Structure formats: structure tokens, C-alpha cells
């Protein structure tokens, strides 16, 4: 296990390096630079600005400078937000986004799995079709539509929850719900299919032939095997949720990370682009690592040490 973790750590760092390299050169392939603006900046000032941020040096030199700083944990200054380091911005946005994402994930996964199980057990019954309908709705209706509806119903009409902004646990509920809808839909559909597949397996018949009660057959023999595919997609899903979403955070006026992903590219804020990308990749890679370990615990056929 220790040896495996060490090996994985190596590949994780390698992956991260590849991501940084590709992002760096792609980013510089975009026409223009952070200081291209509607306002014409005098040439001397532009030169000074570029010199300040080291953008006047050859690309390769810039690349190695960035790598060197990255190894020291320095993500650099933002080129657009004055006097703010990228690390600083991530540090202030991430806890907010993570809190929202965690709430949405927890809600989405439990509800999704629960609905999927119930639907599979009620195969071709009313509830089964109800869940399928719900799943189609959840996947095809965009998040912002749910957001607006929830804000109107539960925020304005009923007044149960604050319409927007951030601060108390009450503020988390509406955006988390809106964000979790798609996840419920996705997980429910997936769990349902997986359950139906497992219920048709021979070993379920063996379990029944042992005289086990229906609930034991479902709980002990079906769900544990059916949940494997869900665990697989959990890594990327959670990574995406944790690092914030542009649309939901915008609609609910939540000071999360989401906006930086979009704005940094629009403004060609080089250090911020790299910073958010590195951050997202690191979390994604780490989540996948966690999932692999969880997989090994649930499914004995997967041996991590080998």
C-alpha cells in the first residue's frame, strides 16, 4: 500500500507537470496579452508593465521561471487584480466554493443513489417511470433555470431561504439544491441501471436460494456491487463541484472560485489562468487517487499493491 501510494504520488506530479506545460503554451498562443485593452496604452508604459511581470523575456525563459516559482509554491501576482496574489485569491474563494460543492455533492449523491435504488426495486412500476422522468428533467434543464425557480418560490414567495448572497448555513441550501439537481438525475439513472444489472446476476439467485430475506439480498448482495460504477465517476464529479461553478455562484452572488475560471481567460490574466488550472488539476488528480483507494476497499478484485 505504501509503495503503491508512493508510485501514485510520482505519476500525480508528472501529470500535473504535463498540465502546466500544455496550459502555459496554449495560453500564450492566444492573440494579445493582459494589457491589450480598448484604451490605448502608451508604448513606453506597456514596455514597463511587461518588464515588471517578466513578459518581455523569451517564452521558454518565462516558462522555466514559472516552473521554478511553482516549485516554491509561488503562483505569482495576478496581472489584473491589483496587489493580489493568485494564491490569495484561491485561498479566499475555495472555502466558499468547497462548502457549496460539498453540500450539493452530499445532497446529490445520497438522493441520486436512493432514487436509483428505489426505481430499480420498482422496475417498470410507477415510481420507476417517475424517476426516469425526473432524471431526464434534471439533466436537460440547465442549472440557472432551477436557480431562478428556487429563488422565486422558496426565496421570494415562501420566504424560507435567503434569495442570494453568502454567510449563514441557510444561504447554502438553495444554491446547493440547484447545483445538486443534475447530480441527482445523473446518479439516479446510473444507480438504477447498475442495480438492474446486478439484480440479474447469478449470485443474486444464489443469495435467494440460500433463503435470505429480500432486504438482506438487496442490502448485502445487490447495493454493494451496484455502487461500484457510481464510485468511479465520483472523483471527477466532486472535483468539479468543489472548485466552484461560474453560473450558480454568479446567480446567487456567492464569492466563490467559479468566476475566476471564466474571467482569467477573458482577460488573459496569465498567472490566474495557470493558477486556477493547476489548482483544479491538483484536486481532480487527488480525487481520482482517493476513488482508486476506495475502489480497492469495496472491490476485492482490484488489488492496488500489484
Amino acid at each position, binding site marked *: 500500500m505504501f509503495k503503491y501510494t508512493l508510485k501514485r504520488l510520482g505519476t500525480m506530479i508528472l501529470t500535473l507537470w504535463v498540465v502546466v506545460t500544455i496550459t502555459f503554451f496554449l495560453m500564450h498562443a492566444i492573440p494579445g496579452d493582459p494589457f491589450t485593452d480598448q484604451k490605448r496604452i502608451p508604448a513606453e508604459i506597456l514596455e514597463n508593465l511587461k518588464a515588471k511581470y517578466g513578459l518581455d523575456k523569451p517564452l521558454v525563459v518565462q516558462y522555466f521561471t514559472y516552473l521554478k516559482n511553482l516549485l516554491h509554491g509561488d503562483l505569482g501576482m495576478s496581472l489584473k487584480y491589483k496587489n493580489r496574489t493568485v494564491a490569495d485569491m484561491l485561498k479566499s474563494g475555495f472555502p466558499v466554493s468547497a462548502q457549496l460543492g460539498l453540500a450539493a455533492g452530499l445532497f446529490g449523491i445520497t438522493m441520486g443513489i436512493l432514487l436509483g435504488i428505489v426505481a430499480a426495486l420498482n422496475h417498470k412500476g410507477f415510481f420507476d417511470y417517475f424517476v426516469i422522468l425526473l432524471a431526464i428533467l434534471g439533466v436537460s434543464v440547465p442549472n440557472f433555470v432551477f436557480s431562478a425557480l428556487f429563488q422565486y418560490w422558496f426565496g421570494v414567495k415562501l420566504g424560507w431561504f435567503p434569495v442570494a448572497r453568502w454567510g449563514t448555513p441557510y444561504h447554502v441550501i438553495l444554491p446547493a439544491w440547484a447545483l445538486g439537481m443534475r447530480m441527482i438525475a445523473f446518479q439516479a439513472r446510473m444507480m438504477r441501471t447498475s442495480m438492474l444489472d446486478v439484480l440479474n446476476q*447469478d*449470485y443474486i*439467485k444464489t*443469495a435467494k436460494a*440460500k*433463503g435470505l430475506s429480500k432486504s438482506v439480498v438487496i442490502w448485502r448482495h445487490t447495493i454493494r456491487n451496484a455502487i461500484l460504477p457510481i464510485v468511479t465517476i465520483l472523483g471527477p464529479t466532486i472535483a468539479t463541484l468543489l472548485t466552484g461553478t461560474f453560473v450558480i455562484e454568479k446567480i446567487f452572488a456567492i464569492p466563490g472560485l467559479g468566476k475566476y475560471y471564466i474571467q482569467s481567460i477573458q482577460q488573459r490574466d496569465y498567472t490566474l489562468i495557470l493558477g486556477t488550472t493547476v489548482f483544479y488539476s491538483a484536486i481532480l488528480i487527488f480525487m481520482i487517487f482517493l476513488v482508486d483507494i476506495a475502489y480497492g476497499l469495496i472491490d476485492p478484485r482490484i488489488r492496488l499493491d500489484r
Partner: protein
Amino acid sequence: MENRDRLLEVKDLHVSFDTYAGEVKAVRGVDFHVDKGETLAIVGESGCGKSVTAQSIMKLIPMPPGRIKKGSIIFDGKDLVKFTDKQMESVRGREISMIFQDPMTSLNPTMKIGKQIMEGLIKHQNMTKKEAKERAIEMIKLVGIPNPAKRVEQYPHEFSGGMRQRAMIAIALACNPKLLIADEPTTALDVTIQAQILDLMKELQNRLNTSIIMITHDLGVVANIAHRIVVMYAGKIIESGTSDDIFFNPQHPYTWGLLQSVPRLDAANKEKLVPILGQPPDLFKPPVGCPFAARCDYAMPVCKEYYPEKTQISEKHHVHCWLQHEMAPKVKNPIVEGRR
């Protein structure tokens, strides 16, 4: 005729499946019985209703779409057809056990072998975990798996195919059931392992006095294990008798066909294997007459019109065939003649 040794009596069993295309009559009036300590083989080709019959006894067919339309399954004096799901739970695994065709898929891949044996013991025999584990180790040893204490801690993927089928037998026999139903237990195994599993079943039967229903399409498999044989075709029993009756004095042309398609080692001149040409009938609309008539070399006009009544050849030997009628032409029995 009724006696205390009778363990299971299936009478006039009809099982159908309701599908979108209509009703599939998988089993159409089957009668047979199993005595204590006896091995009964149910033989027939794919789709003849033998597995459905077996699974109906344990009520393991999915209902719906399946349903037992008619008939009774008297086990130890009680009619299982009338049992509720809850009542069946105390029959399954305790009174009647089952092993399946494919040992590779019949064990739960995420549960230790020992635990899979223990489950039934804890449920049916009120054992503590510790007692159940000891019993599980005992069972693993009984079915001839070496190193039992270590093996119970392993998962199915660490077992070979033959070992898994042994483990299945251990699960099935853990609670000392009165009846073991083996649904093609050796079909998925290679030949040497087949023989080992059959020997094991035979040995355990002698030791534990369990009755066995062996379902198979391979007459070679039943030859040395079955006391009596029931031959099924298109959801009906067309011939039944002792092992000797079926192998040495078969009366139904379908049974002849089955025997002629089994390769023999003792054949002096190299006989050709004779296949049974054609397909079994569609069970959406089973024929009114003898279902085998369309493929039978000896078919007469009457065969297609009326189903033949049961003819008693000897005490235990019955056949449904118009050739037994006094007005039918005498035909040469290829099995009896061929053995001379």
C-alpha cells in the same frame, strides 16, 4: 404406492411466462417424484423446461412474468405452491438447496467465501458468527478444498472454476438440506473437473443421505450418478424410468436420439454420432399432438393430432408415445438392437 420415503412429489405442474408477445408455456403438466436419498436426473435439450421446473420447486422463477398456473409441489407433505414468499425463505437453503450452472458468476464477487457459507447458517440455524465460521471451515474441508482455514478468508476471484463449484456445493449443503437441486452443475467446467465434481456429489450424497435432482442436457453426466431419469421435451415428460431402463431399454424415439448423440468409448466399430435434426417447437403455440412428431423418424398421422397417453412399460418405466399402441407398426429399437 404412497410411502414414507417420498420426499418430493410434483403433480401436473404448469408454468407459464407472460411476455409482450404472449404466453410462453414453458412447463406443461409435469409429474415426477423424488424419494429420500435418491438421485433423479431431468434430461432434455435447451429450452425444454427443465430449469424452469427446477426453479419452480424453489419458487425462484421471477414472478411476474412467470407464474405457476396449475399443479402442486408436495415437499415433505406440504404444498410449496401455496407457500408465501416469507414461508419459502425458511424452505430455501434449509430444506432445499440449489447449485447453478456457472460457478464463475454464481458467487458474490465482493464477499468472502466463508461469509457466503455462514450467511445461511446464521439465518437458518441460529448460529453465532463464531459457530458459523467453524462450520464453514468444516464444509470447505468436506468438499475437498485444501487449507480451509485460509480459504474461508478469500474472495471468489482467488478460486478456480472447479474450486468455486465446490464452494457452491459447500454453501448449498451447509444447512443439511433434504433436497439438493443441481442445475447443470458441470456444464461450465472442463471434463476432468466435471468428473471430480460428480464424484464429490455422489460421495456427499452417500454420507449425508441428501436427495438430488440433477438437471442436465448431457446423458453422459447422469449415467453414473442418477438412480432414475426423467426425459423432458417441450415442457412435458416424455419418458421416465430407472437409469437402466433409460440406457438399456429406452422406448421413446427422442430418448433414442439423445442416446445416439452421446459419444461412446466402447463402440467397437466407429459409429457415427447421429444428431436429432430440426428445432424444438415454439412454446408460444405448442403443438396439440406429440411435440416431437415434427422431428420424429417414426411419426404417424395420429402423432400430430393427439398427445399420446402414458404407457407403463414396467413398474417404474413410463413413456408417452404412440408407438406403444397396439395398432402401431412394430419398429426396431435402435438402442436395444445396436447393443447386441
